[in-house]
Each structure stands twice: as structure tokens, then as C-alpha cells.
């Protein structure tokens, strides 16, 4: 059975792989046998991520990519195909967050969140799909959020973008199912990365946050990595159009 959880021989492109959850997903896919293209805006971060995968015995390539630039996406996918082979696993992870009273959110703020969190996912999926259709298989993992189903004040653009990721996931899943492509959404809750760590810096806030989590703790990036491996591997071949919440039970959305 363990071999069904292997991604040996697969080529994965992970956006936002420079830090946090994206980096953990890239590391986990590398450990599970995939060749991983680590994509993000910061050269230092993608090179460090790729080096960490290589140091752990995996195969990786650093890719500088700003997912809000369509021409960079097309060129990036071609570059990965030339260097590692056609992409058969896409992890749409790049995202930004924004907390602001909605009356103060500018058009530019709104557009920036939607461009990074939603439009980039469509463009990356569109760029890799023809290759996957030719292969007759593929896995697309869109990183959503429990904020896609929770109503969180001061996060209108972020919540809307993450709810939209669910819709994108289901539509792509239905459209490409016949080509052997599975599209699922990985929706984390609070995970131990820079932003939640900063938000929970003082003990009282931390206790308040955790009182809403049945597991009474935050998730670790490695736990997100393990779910990504499951969703990227043949173990999930009969599962598509699903959103899996990794949130210690916080949402339990229907």
C-alpha cells in the first residue's frame, strides 16, 4: 500500500514554495520521490527551498515566478518541462492575505488579493492542463483555506478569494475528470507559520484562537505536506472535486 502513496517519477510544480506551507509541501513531495520545481518571487527563498530538497536526497529546481504575471507562468511551465519533464502535479499554493476594515479596502487592494489567490490558480492550471491531458493523468492541488467557509471580519477579499478556490476546484475537476486529472482543494486552518505565529504572539490571543480548535493546537507545516502527498499520489486517484480541511476540526464544514 505504501507504494500507492509514492510520487516517484512525478514532476511537481509548487507555487509560493519559498516559505511556510508551500515550502513544506515542496519538501514533502521531494521526500516522497517527486522532482519538484520550487516557484516563488524571491530568488533566495526558492534557491534555499530547492537546496533543502536536494540536501534531503531529492531532485529539485528553483524557479523565480511571480504568479500575477501571466507571461512568467507560461515560460515557467515550459522551463520546468524542459528541465524536469512535463508537470504532472501542480500545487497552486501562492497566496497573500490582507486584514483591513472593508470600508478602507481600495480597488487595488482587492484586485491584488484576487489576482494572487484566484486568477493565478486559473492561469497555472490552464498552463499545465494540455500537458496533463496528453499524459492522460495529472493532479492539481489548490490551496484554499478554512476562511473560504468561515465568515471572518476584515478579511472580505481573502475570504472571497478562498471560497472561489472551491468553485474553481469543482469546475476543473468536472471538466478534466475524463482525462484522468484529479483536482482537489487542500484547505488549512491555523498552521504554525510566520503570519499565525505573529497573530498569536501573546498568550491571551493564542488561548482565544485555540479555544475554537477541537484539537486545541495549531497544525504543523509538515502535516500539510503529508496531505499534499496523499492528494498528489495514486492513493487519491478516485477522489476529485473535494475540499479537505486540515484544521484540527475547527470548521467541520458539511
Amino acid at each position, binding site marked *: *500500500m*505504501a507504494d500507492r502513496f509514492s510520487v516517484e517519477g512525478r514532476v511537481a510544480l509548487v507555487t509560493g514554495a519559498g516559505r511556510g506551507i508551500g515550502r513544506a509541501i515542496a519538501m514533502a513531495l521531494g521526500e516522497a520521490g517527486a522532482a519538484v520545481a520550487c516557484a516563488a518571487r524571491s530568488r533566495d527563498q526558492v534557491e534555499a527551498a530547492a537546496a533543502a530538497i536536494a540536501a534531503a536526497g531529492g531532485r529539485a529546481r528553483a524557479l523565480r515566478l511571480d504568479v500575477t504575471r501571466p507571461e512568467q507562468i507560461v515560460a515557467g511551465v515550459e522551463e520546468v518541462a524542459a528541465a524536469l519533464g512535463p508537470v504532472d502535479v501542480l500545487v497552486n499554493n501562492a497566496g497573500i492575505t490582507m486584514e483591513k476594515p472593508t470600508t478602507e479596502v481600495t480597488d487595488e487592494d482587492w484586485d491584488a488579493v484576487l489576482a494572487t489567490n484566484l486568477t493565478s490558480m486559473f492561469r497555472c492550471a490552464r498552463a499545465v492542463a494540455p500537458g496533463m491531458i496528453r499524459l492522460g493523468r495529472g493532479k492539481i492541488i489548490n490551496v484554499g483555506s478554512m476562511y473560504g467557509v468561515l465568515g471572518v471580519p476584515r478579511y472580505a477579499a481573502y475570504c472571497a478569494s478562498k471560497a472561489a478556490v472551491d468553485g474553481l476546484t469543482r469546475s476543473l475537476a468536472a471538466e478534466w475528470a475524463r482525462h484522468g486529472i484529479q483536482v482537489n482543494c487542500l484547505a488549512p486552518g491555523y498552521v504554525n507559520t510566520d503570519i499565525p505565529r505573529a497573530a498569536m504572539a501573546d498568550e491571551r490571543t493564542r488561548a482565544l484562537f485555540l479555544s475554537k480548535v*477541537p*484539537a486545541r493546537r495549531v497544525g504543523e507545516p509538515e502535516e500539510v505536506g*503529508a496531505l499534499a502527498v*496523499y492528494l498528489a499520489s495514486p492513493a*487519491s486517484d478516485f477522489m*476529485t472535486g473535494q475540499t*479537505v480541511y486540515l484544521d484540527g*476540526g475547527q470548521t467541520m464544514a458539511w
Partner: protein
Amino acid sequence: MDLNLAGKSVIVTGGGSNIGRAISLAFAREGTHLTLAEIDEGQGRKVVAEAKSRGAASAALVQTDVTRWESVQAMVREVEGRLGRVDVLVNNVGWTYDRLFVEKERSEWEREIQLNLWGMINCTRAVLDGMIARKAGAVVSMGSDAGRMGEFREAVYGACKAGVIALSKSLAREVGRHGIRLNVVCPGMTIPASDEDFGERSMWAADVNRAFSTPEMQARIAKAYPLRRIGKPEDVAPAVLFLASDAASFITGQTLSVSGGYTMM
């Protein structure tokens, strides 16, 4: 990815037939201590032998009627006595008759509620004390897409499966603080590959359900699934293993449809 399930004590209810059999054999290959809580002795013995030959650290049959609380308690006591603990419970027993609601006998509804809901309540209740004491444990229960979106000819069955989902979520809230996780996997229609894969007490032995076994019927059903095929028992087993393992250590209260995209919710 190594799921680190080797050496874990795993109970699979209804582990002798169809999906339960595939789940049991998948846990066997991971080197677990496997217990089949199965009412059909002959089928159970067969699968225990298969499990041993496929790498189980140990495999045992404990003949169990999941609808009877005394039988379930005795089964869990036996496992805790023999292995010291239960790490994983898979509530797999399930049953339905393919019939319209208004055409079903009350006795058929009652049988569905007994097997699909009471069985899950009994088994889950019985393992929780030990799991709470050890501050660890995973319960994976088989739901159904019928319980998420409703289904023709599966009214009471669907209601039971919705109950399995809600019970799992409520308990996930209650016992999350003890490190115990409960999740649900919803298979699509999963028809046994051969008559060898289920016992005479399986729902697949019931005449009314045999109608699904014809190739014409299966081709018709496959069209309802975006992935254009009917589920195999082996499709579901990896999802159960994943949720039962520490790889899913921050996932609880979730319902996962592994059904070829039949439901996307």
C-alpha cells in the same frame, strides 16, 4: 510516504467482505495488528488467512454482531486484553436494500438503522474509554454520498449515513482535546469484483442487490461518475489508511468523498 502504521492495533468491522476486506488487507500490508470484527465466521477466517500472508503483524477474527452492545463490548475487551490497546477503529459495517422508501417494509428500515447507525455508535463508544485514557486514537467510519446529498431508493440508509457524519463531527469536538480524531470516508457505489469477495451475510448476497452485478447495469451507473467508472474496493482503502495514520494528525471531523467526483461538496 510511510504511514507508520506498522505495529498499530486496528479493528475493522465487517472486515470480511468487499470494501471491508480491501481495507483489512491494506492494513495487513502495512504490518498492523489486525482484528476483524465480523459476524460471518467463514468469510472472516478466509480474510484473516489472507491478511497473515500479506504481512499483518498479527490477524485475528473476533466474531461480532455490531448491533448488540454486549457483543461489541466483549470484542473490544478481547482486543484490549490481547494487544493492550486499540489505536484505530474502522466502522465499516454497512447495509442497504435497494428499494423505494414507500415500498420498504418497516423491518428493512429497522435493520438499516441497526447496522448502519447503531453498529457505529456501539463500536465507537466501546473503544473511546481506552483511547481517552491513552490520549490517542483514530476512528474512520464509512459514510455515503447518500448521506451528503440524498439518493433515490436509499432514504433510510442515507439518513443513517448522515447520522454517521454528524456523530463523527460531534465526537470530534468532544474528544479532540484528548488527541482522538474521527473522520468519515464516503465511497461511491462499490460492487464486489467476484463472489469470493463477500460472505453470505453481506448486503451483496441479498437478491435485490444482485441486480447491480450485470455489466449493462454497471455501464449505466458508471456514466453518473465524472471519472466514468464504478468504484473498486481498492479505491477507498488508501483514504482510510491515510486518515487512520499520523500523516493526518491535524485532520478531524472531516468527510471525504472518494467517489470519482460524484459529489463535489
